[in-house]
């Protein structure tokens, strides 16, 4: 499934030197316009666009999950996944509105690796996206300069963590997987990832080559 949008525009925006420095970290030029990327004073725009990209990915994924439910889906699963879809759409739209003219265009996604008829495939992908989202927000918090944006990110990330636990519980009911030792370390800490690592993980699901180039 792909969404036909601004691939050419994104590619056009991508320079050879696609990374932009934001608060000391490298953010890829994830469709961020050159004009904004050049202005470090606009660093929060870069972080918000990073979040916006991930929310676009999640919203598109769950939209497809609900449109083409996997075989044997239960009522409870439908309820949960519908709620999660609605949340991701809200997150996406919130960020788009916050970004205004600074928002990246709609991304082109590629879920060809997902078998939407398969519960295992759908839930495994959902778990990947939710855990990735949590790690992304956790790692990006320190890059945010505006307290209002940090709070907004905080209001989103804990909902992503709630999703992650719920999806993990669907996969492995009543086990400790909801906060398993693959995501929570011996200090009781969740994962935090830098943007480059997150976007590398998201890359297979995003059709444009932009992100892969930017991670270098």
């Amino acid at each position, binding site marked *: 499934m792909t969404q036909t949008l601004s691939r050419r525009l994104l590619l056009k925006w991508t320079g050879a030197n696609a990374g932009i420095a934001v608060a000391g970290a490298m953010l890829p030029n994830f469709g961020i316009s050159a004009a904004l990327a050049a202005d470090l004073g606009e660093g929060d725009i870069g972080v918000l666009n990073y979040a916006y990209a991930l929310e676009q990915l999640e919203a598109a994924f769950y939209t497809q999950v609900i449109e083409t439910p996997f075989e044997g889906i239960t009522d409870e699963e439908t309820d949960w996944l519908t709620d999660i879809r609605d*949340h991701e759409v809200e997150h996406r739209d919130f960020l788009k509105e916050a970004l205004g003219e600074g928002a990246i265009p709609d991304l082109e996604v590629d879920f060809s690796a997902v078998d939407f008829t398969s519960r295992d495939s759908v839930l495994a992908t959902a778990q990947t996206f939710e855990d990735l989202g949590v790690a992304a927000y*956790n*790692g990006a918090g320190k890059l945010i300069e505006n307290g209002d944006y*940090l*709070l907004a990110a905080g209001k989103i990330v804990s*909902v992503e*963590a709630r999703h992650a636990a*719920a999806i993990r519980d669907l996969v492995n009911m009543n086990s400790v997987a909801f906060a398993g030792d693959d*995501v929570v370390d011996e200090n009781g*800490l969740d994962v935090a990832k830098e943007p480059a690592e997150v976007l590398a993980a998201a890359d297979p699901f995003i059709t444009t080559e932009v992100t892969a180039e930017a991670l270098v």
Partner: protein
Amino acid sequence: MTQENSILSEIEPEVVDRIAVGRREMFSRYAKMGGIVASAPLALALASNQAFGQSLPSQVVDVLNFALTLEYLEAAFYDQGNKSGVVPREYRAVFRTIGEHENAHVKLLKGVLGSASVAAPAVDFTAGGQYADVFENFETFRLLSQTFEDLGVAAYKGQAGNLMGSGAILTVALQIHSVEARHASEVRRIGLKYGWDSAFDKPLSKNAVLAAATPFLA
């Protein structure tokens, strides 16, 4: 008590202020800590097990001690609950894991704060008898667990802004915050509810958090 009962939703702003005043004293101790503005690398402190609470800005010490107090409360709750036998067999691994995480958070925060750490508060999980069957009735236990987890999520969220510029410490707080949210989701699910209220979790101010926690401080 019904499943829909929520301590958080019962809090009235006026009550929040009134209760918070009484407890403010014990938290005001934090303010005298701190001094030189520093953002010491947390990893170093953890590796060396050498506390650097005295070198942290007072605002950061204040937030971390506030967090530590909540973690003490949670850790004690699960320590008692997991020993009491109130947790049905199928959920024991879940609550044991949550308890381990809360104890890890206590250890981590104490390690960072060192001698600036507040002491563990005395606790009363019956809240003066209001939840008398907390360690006998699983639904009461589960409800309080949900309350503490949601409270923790809201508390860390509300303090994130006070950790801006603290680098690794903000990241650690966020890493705890999302673990609390995972706990909250799971505990809610066990109550056969959704793991969330809406697309956006709400923060709570320190006073509001203290007001919710105060009934459980003996």
